[in-house]
């Protein structure tokens, strides 16, 4: 059924495009990260749905990840071809805002925005969110820890977690901020204990999750929504997210319009389009993150059944930008052998 829908959408967008004069259409260039536009990401669906209404061509340009996006923007500066940057997150937001490259804009649907926390930013528009969580292999874990404290203080689980490096990976930074937001000034001991529970530290999410699915460790740092992937795509309940009573750290992914853009009206209409149920369902089913407009009727049941994060933890973006270097250094001093 979904395939039929996709075929119709694609067909509907291809046929008129074939008749339209080539080059007459304005082009909207959106910089984003790899996995969003890869063959399996939501990119293709978002593109075809948007092009149905905008009378334009949407061009994706991909960087490796959110952090690489920001770096790329800083290098290209005013010369950038991008009209929109899509895929920065709340941790990079303050730094991105400080570049002064972005045009403040509130999407028309901003009032219906539904996030676990109150959203105050006026420059960027959220398009999905997720909570960091430990994923567990139920073939190896019979009684999962109920809290981060239980995991860290327990006698079990030495060398059982695969985690990413906060210097090279967004989830890695998320783990560090998670510990910071729970333990605050006492994070020293917590990081020390976390070190003992860690099997290895990888460069990025892919390496970590790859090791995890090869059976190297019972836990990996990922997202609550990872569970949905295994249920929907693999019909498997072997891998589950572990709810922690302290709450889970939140990641909100955002898009922003560049001041240098020559297609500002088009860019604004794209931001308005991000709240469309089609976009939001693609984000859930292809990007494996939660939609930001509350319930999307077409989503599979598992998205409702995912473990409740309880409290959403979030450190203010400016605070993160200010302390990141020092915190990463602190992490590094504990994670030495």
């Amino acid at each position, binding site marked *: 059924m979904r395939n039929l829908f996709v075929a119709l959408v694609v067909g509907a967008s291809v046929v008129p495009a074939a008749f339209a004069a080539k080059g007459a259409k304005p082009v909207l260039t959106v910089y984003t990260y*790899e*996995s969003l536009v*890869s*063959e*399996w*990401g939501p990119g293709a669906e978002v593109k075809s749905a948007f092009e149905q209404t905008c009378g334009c061509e949407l061009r994706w*340009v*991909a*960087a*490796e990840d959110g*952090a*690489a996006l*920001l*770096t*790329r923007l*800083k*290098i*290209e*500066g005013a*010369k950038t*071809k991008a009209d929109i940057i899509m895929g920065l997150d709340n941790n990079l937001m303050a730094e991105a805002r400080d570049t002064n490259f972005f045009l403040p804009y509130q999407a028309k649907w901003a009032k219906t925005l539904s996030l676990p926390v109150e959203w105050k930013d006026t420059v960027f528009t959220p398009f999905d969110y997720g909570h960091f969580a430990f994923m567990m292999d139920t073939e190896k874990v019979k009684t999962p820890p109920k809290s981060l404290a239980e995991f860290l203080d327990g006698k079990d689980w030495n*060398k059982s977690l695969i985690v990413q*490096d906060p*210097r*090279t990976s967004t989830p890695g930074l998320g783990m560090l901020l998670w510990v910071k937001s729970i333990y605050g000034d006492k994070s020293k001991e917590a990081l020390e204990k976390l070190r003992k529970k*860690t*099997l*290895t*530290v*990888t*460069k990025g*999410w*892919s*390496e970590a*999750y*790859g*090791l995890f*699915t*090869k*059976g*190297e*460790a019972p836990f990996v740092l990922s997202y609550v929504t*990872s569970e949905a*992937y295994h249920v929907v*795509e693999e019909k498997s309940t072997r891998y589950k997210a572990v709810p922690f009573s302290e709450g889970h750290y939140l990641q909100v992914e955002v898009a922003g319009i560049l001041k240098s853009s020559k297609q500002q009206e088009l860019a604004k209409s794209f931001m308005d389009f991000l709240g469309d149920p089609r976009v939001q369902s693609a984000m859930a089913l292809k990007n*494996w993150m939660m939609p930001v407009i509350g319930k999307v009727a077409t989503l599979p049941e598992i998205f409702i059944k995912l473990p409740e994060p309880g409290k959403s933890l979030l450190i203010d973006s400016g605070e993160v930008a200010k302390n990141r*270097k020092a915190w990463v*250094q602190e992490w*590094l*001093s504990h*994670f*030495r*052998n």
Partner: protein
Amino acid sequence: MRSGVSVGLGALMVSVPLCLLAGAIGWPLMGLFVEFFTTAQDFSALGDLLSSRWVGGVIRFTLWQATLSALLSVGLAFPLARVFAFHEFPGKRFLLSLSILPFALPSILVAFAFVIAYGNSGYVGSLLRHVGLDVTLLYNRWAIVAANVFFNLPFAVRLLAAREAALPRQQIQSSALLGLPWWLTLWHVELPHVARVALNVAILTFSLCLGSFAIAMVLGGAPDLNTTEVAIYQFVRFEFDVPAASCLAAVQLVLTLLAALVYRMSFERGSHRHQEPVLAGALVRPLAGRAWPVQAFCWGSIALYSLFLLLPLSAIVVDGVRSLMRNALSDPATRSAARSATTVSVQLAGLAGMSASVLAWMYVRGSIALSAGFPRLARSLRQLVWLSMGISPTVLAFAWFLVLRATDWAFVVILAVHVVLALPLCVRILLPAVEVVVAQSDRSVKLLGVPAWRILVQIELPALRTPLFLAFALAFALSFGEVAAVALFGSDEVETLPLLLYRLMGAYRFHDAAALSLLLALVCGSVFFIGERYQK
């Protein structure tokens, strides 16, 4: 009148690769330099960075792992090279062909292969657990060294075996006539003959290990087991801290240069004249006919080497086949992506391989001709090529990005970066072979007065088929597996197989990724097998 290749033609031949190298390295590094001085406001911060405990630790570890990997690779390669050089045994050519394969695999693939072979739930790990031994083999510093040796040992074996095969036969025979014990022959004849190449290979391995990075992060288990390359990556990609990244890149360059200098010093004083090699073909005998202690030692070494090489490689095959049986790579989007990525990868690596091997040949041949008129200049030129060993692909790609301020020309830039990376290796492979061929052709040609182009094209190049192919294969492999430059520049226009591998994993498609790894290994492997077959 001197016939043959003139000094002028030599200069011309050297200048082509030299100019390209200067353009591909010099221009972007200049850009980096400018950026460094325009953005670095606080030089004391850089001093702090370099003297910080963390950077000190990273540099120490980088040196430790690179040195140990180099010593182990060469130390283990020496006995193996003797086995390969002096004995004929079934499967020898297969093993030698297979030996380049690790070089072509993206490091993430090798990391996963190691995990499947030696990890907690891998073959060896499960076996050990089965007999009651609960040990973690990976996730420590030794795992990093083992992975480095896996990459570099086969390469060292090939180069040393080639050198062993060129042992001066007369010396071996006279020492046999004198009734010297084998260990004295080894000490007085073989070791001096091999030493220069061995040190050379050690430095190559050392330089290659300086840049290893993804492996260290997956298998190391702890962030202090990181190399300077990860710190460079962090500053380039995450912090956009050009001064800090440039500083560390400079440190890495200095380390490589020091290594090259050690090499230079240890041989500069000794006789630099190339011994006229007499191919010791007559020394090669079937292994089956040797005395039993020799047989036992040789078969033992071959078995261990095969195991070391084949276990991780077969892990890729088993994992790939298992995934294919679970319908990996079955949907059309994945299939067409895999097809186009294969085309792009083969084109890119093929071009990089051809450019690098041809440029390296021009460089080597030109410098030999040049040495007739300017010996010191020619020698310095040969040292100069070491410089590009010390440049990290991450830094070079980033520097290109800085000067272009856009990712246009992606294919050309990636190609340039790959050629720069491969050129020193190709020069290293071609240098001894070209020296031999030139020495032989010079003698015969001087008498006949054959024009230079005919000497080069009709006499020398055909004689160099084998080393030229090896140079091509290594450059191909290096380009095929490289991912840092491709990830920075190529994501839109140049989607290579390793990049697609990352994309699949980024979309949770680990089964597809495993099947693609198999495809990657097969494509690369078949290029080598076809090439080796074609030579004979």
